[in-house]
């Protein structure tokens, strides 16, 4: 089956449907999508993140590399508030969100995917994405059924086509293959006019075909959407990211553009020594 890269709904389209004010915010806010200031996270005696200072410009695409246990996922959890930082500040588009709950950060345009898929197993694929679209807009508590020609359902379906899940829209999540569940993870993060997305190892366990489809999706994201991608596969990371952050033992170890990082002797030592091909 020949697949054409379906279009991801543009921010303006989505914004009109969702009636979010993400775009107006985008124009009115500063240069940085994300600023972390001396962020650390402890789990008991374990220091999973130590004194992280990190800035990502609006629209920038960044790869985070590092061996298992380096603290990459913990970094994402600190940014989203899943596990808030023990100390330090997190700013999103210039606004200090350190004390905001997860859903408030999401409503400001932040999204994430999970390393291990977290989906709504009892619901259909299209309902999963519909809820994700609705989550960033109004009417979340509506007791009415969405109409069949509901604009938001339409956006959800466009998004499903974009991640090649249109054919299984009515299947239950529990019935999907691993690869399809990973695609759905991504669709949930793309829903509802995101401005900045955290992708946690989206390519893990994908077949080579699925992997290149993923790269295609990431490359076709509208330019105002920035992201951080955690990825073990250097090839994937370097094809979608313009800058790289290396993490090791809960600290930032190196930052730079892909070329610098790839040829850096310390990185090579760590990476090849760390058992990653």
């Amino acid at each position: 089956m020949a697949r054409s890269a379906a279009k991801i709904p543009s921010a303006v389209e989505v914004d009109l449907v969702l009636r979010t004010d993400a775009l107006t915010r985008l124009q009115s806010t500063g240069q940085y999508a994300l600023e972390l200031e001396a962020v650390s996270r402890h789990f008991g005696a374990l220091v999973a993140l130590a004194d992280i200072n990190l800035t990502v410009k609006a629209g920038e695409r960044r790869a985070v590399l590092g061996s298992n246990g380096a603290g990459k996922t913990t970094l994402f959890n600190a940014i989203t508030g899943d596990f808030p930082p023990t100390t330090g500040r997190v700013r999103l588009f210039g606004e200090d969100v350190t004390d905001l709950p997860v859903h408030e950060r999401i409503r400001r345009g932040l999204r994430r995917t999970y390393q291990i898929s977290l989906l709504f197993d009892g619901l259909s694929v299209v309902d999963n994405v519909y809820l994700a679209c609705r989550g960033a807009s109004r009417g979340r508590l509506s007791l009415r059924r969405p109409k069949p020609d509901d604009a938001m359902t339409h956006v959800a379906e466009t998004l499903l086509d974009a991640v090649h899940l249109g054919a299984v829209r009515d299947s239950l999540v529990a019935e999907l293959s691993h690869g399809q569940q990973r695609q759905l993870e991504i669709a949930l993060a793309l829903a509802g006019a995101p401005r900045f997305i955290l992708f946690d190892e989206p390519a893990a366990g994908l077949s080579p075909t699925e992997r290149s489809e993923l790269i295609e999706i990431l490359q076709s994201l509208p330019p105002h959407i920035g992201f951080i991608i955690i990825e073990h596969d250097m090839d994937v990371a370097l094809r979608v990211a313009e800058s790289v952050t290396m993490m090791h033992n809960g600290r930032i170890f190196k930052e730079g553009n892909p070329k610098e990082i790839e040829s850096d002797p310390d990185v090579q030592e760590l990476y090849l020594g760390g058992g990653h091909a």
Partner: protein
Amino acid sequence: MANISLIAGKGVLPNIHPAAAITVLFLLFYPAFASDFFVFQIGAYSLVLGTIALSLVMLAGYGGMVSLSQLTVAGLAGYLMAILGHNSVGVMGLGWPWWLTALTAIFAASVFSALIGAISVRTEGIYTIMITLAIAVAFFYFVRQNYVIFNGFTGYAGVVPPTLFGIYWRDPTPFYYLSLAVAAFFFFMVVYGARSTFGLSLQAIRDNPRRMRAIGYDVTLHRIFAYFLSGLIAGTAGVLMVWFNGRISPGSVGVDVVIDILVIAVVGGMRHPIGPFVGALAFVLLENFAIDLIDRERFNTVIGTAFLLVVLFSPDGLLGLWARIRERLRLRKHPQSDGSGVH
């Protein structure tokens, strides 16, 4: 747990199953051929208990929150009917018109339910059960010890529905139809609401609350709202309950009755809003006829054994048992089919 039957199917009315049509006709014409005892003590009472259990199924089946306070919420509505309206005890009884009393009682019960939600929604699983049970027990002791408002151990009697349109609504047939109307209304609301935006979000929270937060939902708010809605159902059923009994006392909101509601919901099945009504009918039939076979003292043993058997052999209650029997029969008829496509 995948709730296929909750979410499959596009609408309520299209392509009515013959069994559903027969059930509806049976329910509508039931008083025409049943005795007063069967209309009132069996029919109406099953519908009232079923509606209280439905409020639990809404919370537990769709939202994953097993609350043992549903009967307590219904009980508060019942007490308020006696306190704000009329009773024959000579305590309280403010004499409000019946409709204002009923509306206030139902609304207050919903708010009470939302408060219970606010206290318990940050807990999960067994802890939710413990907290809501503790609230139910606290309410029981409170009304038993409070004489000023709740008239303590005695409680209230003489709480009856009004005479309206020349009909005394506590007569068996009118009360049966009143209960049927209320039960049917909430049944269809739950069926419809399951596919509403809020209904979907509730099921998604049951499946994965962490992910719901990560797509922008205030999970706590949604859960509290679910408690409020379930309070509407339980509160309305509570008004019917006090009208049915004519009286309410601490015994009406005791722990044994609290557990009965859970038993009804579990035995009936939590996967579909018809489950609590099936469970309630089974419960009421057992309650009325098991004592012909055995000692009244042993009734709880019978209920407990029935509960154990159903839970052991069918985690989805009587509904699940029925679905499995039907599946067996279908497979025997068409042995080549693969058993999928159960609706």
